[in-house]
């Protein structure tokens, strides 16, 4: 028995993990499909898959290469993310897309950098993703921007004292919260900051704190799991002030939580499905059709055909990757990495061009309102720091 | 306080020991002496509190009242405290009031030179006979965990091992040195437990029913064995035993305990004639 185990072990260890057919270029998809951010991750994957269904091949050196998507679940956990990233790298992907959530992206970043595989961040908004990793690019806006935007918006709603609630140990929320706080204070507002610990279900006390501190707006960037609870319990306690959050809240989980309740929920996001720009409109209609054609995809989207901004970003990310491959005219990661900085692309989420850190130069966020009656997101306005 | 003066050569000395669990008085005002070189037996019907007495001596229990002296040095002194003051069912409580309570943990007491065996054998089950005895020698180590880990204590380690195998020799278990302790036959396990106790270099050896579950012949051998090691390691032996012939054969003096009270004390012949003792034992037989 033991000998057998030992033997198997030895053999498996010696199997080199190499295997590559020709005329196939592998694009790694580094996304959570389980865990706190699973919902958003799945929507992002959908966007990527849709893009892939439209552009399944790419020409390199005159030859057509079929694009194979290699999807790994990073489970929304920084430690699991590392092995997920390693598994992608070991499958010889040429470029990586993802992830939803900044923590996992930063964790995976090292692995990609180590292997010299370029990664394109889809909706990870923490500055350090690109700042501390030379192989990470990103097509969405950053938290300092988003935080400022929401602070401005809060002021416009007439708020003077904000209650900022973030999850202890979640760098995305804590980071975004900090930027919001700075911006809001600069605008002359007061702030009460508090954390909840992972696995918290009981938010009653936090809502009470917000009320008893006389806050007139809540900013709670966190995973949708907790968002749903916060909204539900805020409504249960009949709060009158609005709840604000970042991109994560643009999710059907939020709509379900807010539906039929007397509560005002706003979030900032990367894209609006009612955008009348031609590209966007085309994408939206196409994507809806594609979703409705397949129940499985629809469930992954949260059971409806509402187009999430992260899906749009996923769509753009894939096309940016293809553009980079074309520019490099090679499936070699190094070449693609070299080509990426020069890539520019007219995406459905706006024009994408990278600055020297590797971030897309984006200066506009879409603010949406979770409409309790219709159970859909209403577009409120676009906002940029300028205002 | 007259009791506390020690009469010269006694090794162990209990004065007014009372052990009470909640309302139950397990030992009631027991006083006894064990002198150097003696073999003293503590007998009595089941539940008379013999093992409890051992536990008070070895620091497993803290007596409710009374004192234990070892070579004249107090190793346990106590008087009813807290809610025990109300509950206390024994006597002579006030005699120890103004003495400060003395408590030692079992390991300290073993360190002072009292070693014991257990009524229900307690060998280290995953260890071999040899290792069991070897563990007994750990107590007299001079090395700390660093010197031991990095093997800077080779000399001592060697000495320990020699001593252990020597002891196994003494008790006639060398042939089974590498057997699992728990795989040994009953009699050998008892001997092993004694060897393990001897490994701690005791001056007083407490044996809790060493002959339990042995046939007459084994018992006789054990008797000789006890006397034998007593002389070889010049020990004092204090034992609890039910096998009367063994007790009568080897012990110099006998204490009889019944329902926690001492009902008799004396030489084997005296005890055999003692009506109270006989009554106590007959009483038991009736049940």
């Amino acid at each position, binding site marked *: 028995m033991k000998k057998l185990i*030992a033997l198997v*072990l030895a053999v498996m*260890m010696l199997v080199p993990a190499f295997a590559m057919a020709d005329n196939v270029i592998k694009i790694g998809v580094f996304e959570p499909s389980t865990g706190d951010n699973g919902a958003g991750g799945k929507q992002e994957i959908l966007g990527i898959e849709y893009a892939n269904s439209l552009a399944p091949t790419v020409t390199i050196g005159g030859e057509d290469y079929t694009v194979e998507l290699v999807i790994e679940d990073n489970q929304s956990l920084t430690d699991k993310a590392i092995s997920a990233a390693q598994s992608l790298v070991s499958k010889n992907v040429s470029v990586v897309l993802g992830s939803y959530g900044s923590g996992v992206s930063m964790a995976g*970043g090292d692995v990609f950098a180590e292997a010299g595989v370029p990664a394109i961040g889809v909706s990870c908004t923490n500055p350090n993703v690109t700042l501390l990793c030379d192989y990470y690019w990103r097509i969405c806006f950053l938290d300092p921007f988003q935080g400022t935007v929401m602070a401005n918006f809060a002021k416009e709603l007439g708020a003077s004292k904000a209650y900022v609630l973030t999850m202890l140990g979640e760098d995305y929320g804590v980071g975004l919260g900090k930027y919001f706080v700075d911006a809001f204070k600069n605008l002359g507002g007061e702030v009460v900051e508090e*954390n909840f610990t992972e696995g918290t279900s009981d938010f009653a006390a936090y809502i009470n704190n917000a009320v008893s501190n006389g806050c007139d707006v809540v900013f709670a960037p966190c995973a949708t799991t907790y968002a749903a609870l916060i909204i539900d319990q805020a409504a249960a306690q009949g709060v009158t002030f609005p709840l604000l959050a970042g991109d994560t809240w643009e999710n059907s989980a939020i709509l379900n939580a807010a539906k039929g309740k007397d509560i005002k929920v706003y979030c900032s996001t990367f894209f609006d499905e009612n955008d009348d720009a031609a590209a966007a409109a085309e994408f939206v209609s196409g994507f809806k059709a594609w979703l409705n054609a397949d129940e499985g995809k629809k469930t992954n989207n949260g059971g409806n055909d509402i187009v999430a901004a992260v899906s749009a970003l996923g769509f753009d990310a894939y096309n940016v990757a293809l553009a980079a491959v074309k520019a490099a005219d090679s499936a070699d990661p190094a070449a693609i990495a070299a080509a990426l900085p020069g890539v520019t692309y007219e995406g459905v989420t706006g024009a994408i061009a990278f600055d020297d850190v590797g971030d897309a130069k984006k200066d506009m966020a879409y603010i949406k309102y979770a409409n309790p009656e219709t159970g859909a997101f209403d577009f409120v306005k676009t906002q940029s720091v300028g205002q | 306080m007259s009791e506390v003066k020690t009469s010269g050569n006694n090794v162990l000395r209990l004065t007014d020991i009372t052990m009470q669990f909640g309302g139950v008085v397990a030992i009631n005002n027991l006083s006894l002496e064990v002198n150097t070189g003696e073999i003293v037996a503590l007998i009595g019907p089941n539940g008379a509190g013999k093992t409890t007495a051992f536990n008070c001596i070895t620091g497993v229990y803290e007596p409710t009242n009374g004192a234990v002296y070892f070579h004249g040095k107090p190793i346990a002194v106590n008087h009813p405290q807290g809610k025990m003051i109300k509950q206390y069912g024994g006597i002579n409580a006030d005699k120890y009031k103004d003495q400060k309570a003395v408590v030692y943990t079992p*390991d300290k007491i073993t360190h002072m030179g009292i070693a014991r065996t257990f009524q229900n054998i307690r060998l280290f089950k995953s260890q071999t006979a040899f290792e069991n005895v070897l*563990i007994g020698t*750990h107590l007299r180590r001079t090395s700390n965990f660093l010197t031991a880990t990095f093997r800077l*204590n080779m000399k001592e380690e060697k000495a320990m091992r020699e001593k252990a195998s020597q002891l196994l020799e003494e008790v006639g278990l060398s042939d089974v040195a590498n057997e699992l302790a728990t795989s040994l036959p009953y009699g050998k396990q008892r001997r092993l437990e004694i060897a393990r106790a001897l490994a701690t270099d005791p001056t007083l050896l407490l044996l809790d029913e060493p002959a339990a579950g042995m046939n007459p012949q084994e018992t006789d051998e054990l008797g000789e064995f006890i006397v034998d090691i007593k002389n070889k390691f010049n020990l004092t032996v204090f034992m609890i035993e039910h096998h009367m012939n063994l007790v009568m054969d080897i012990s110099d003096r006998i204490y009889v305990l019944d329902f926690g009270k001492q009902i008799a004390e004396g030489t084997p012949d005296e005890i055999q004639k003692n009506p109270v003792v006989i009554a106590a034992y007959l009483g038991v037989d009736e049940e």
Partner: protein
Amino acid sequence: MKKGNKRLIISLIVVALFYAGGCLIEHLSGTTSMVVTVLQKGAVYALIAVSMNLLNGFTGLFSLGQAGFMLVGAYSYAILTIPMAKRAAVYQYYNGGWVQFTIGVLPALLIAGVVAALFAALIGLPVLRLKGDYLAIATLGFAEIIRAIVQWDTIGPLTNGSNLLKTYPTLKNIMPGNTVLFTFIVVGICIGMILLLINSTYGRSFKAIRDDEVAAEAMGINLFHHKQMAFVISSFFAGIGGALLAMYQGSLQANSFKSAMTYEILLIVVIGGMGSVSGSIIASFLFIACSEWWLRFLDAETMIGDFKVPLLAPGFRMVVFAVVIMVVVLFFRKGIMGDRELWELGSRRKAKGGASVK
């Protein structure tokens, strides 16, 4: 005794071959291949599992604080080794943080262990007086408390609060191309020390305490003193293990050191066999290889032609895993090695029952 020596030599040769193999594989398949990942992480987990085994398997103390001590070790290492140039960026919200110096990797590893050991010494004072499962739950609690403190915003300038620590020297940039060798060397030295301790007179008395506390105390073994010793030493190596894990991961977040991690390690120890160092080592490599590599396919929805393989979906891997573990716990309670070591196989101490059996 001679036979023992021969076995020792043989097993040393085996170890040497294993080391050589490790390096060879790395040079053949490149640092980023899955097999190398498994070798690195497996080795790290081996150390952690052995350190836990020292406590649960050899001393019979059911402690569930391992993740907490790994956390302490990992953070101590990372905080001390992040290069000055990068601190401003890493501690972006705490303008550079408090610590304004950097030390070498090896001293940092050592300090990681020492700090973890100090924590253990403090926690041990109260907790080790508790028995059995109370000890388990109390240590579990302390691990959680430590995590809460590390993430606490107020000491953010030290721990970077909830945010990742990055840019500290990782396996890759210490011995480029020889990451496996480095890991194996450090882990090897640590496990070697643990082995020496276990086979010393102190190790024997640990086992005595495990087998029978009352008898051990009657043998003059000071229970608390020895338990404390085992606890502190175990935590020392858990700390180093945590630091190595940080080096392996390349980025560090308190969030990942949950009780789930402790459970994983505990299960590794059980699979390997309570009270068997070699068992823990084997089990670690098996566990990591399966969870990170061989069983990954279970998580991927795969089509064979038009036929969709049933059950395969994200999360299935962990289910299979948990089932296997339950089977081991219920039907092979001795685990792979029982409480024997590789070099004892075929020796005449057969009937020997492990701490977790009979």
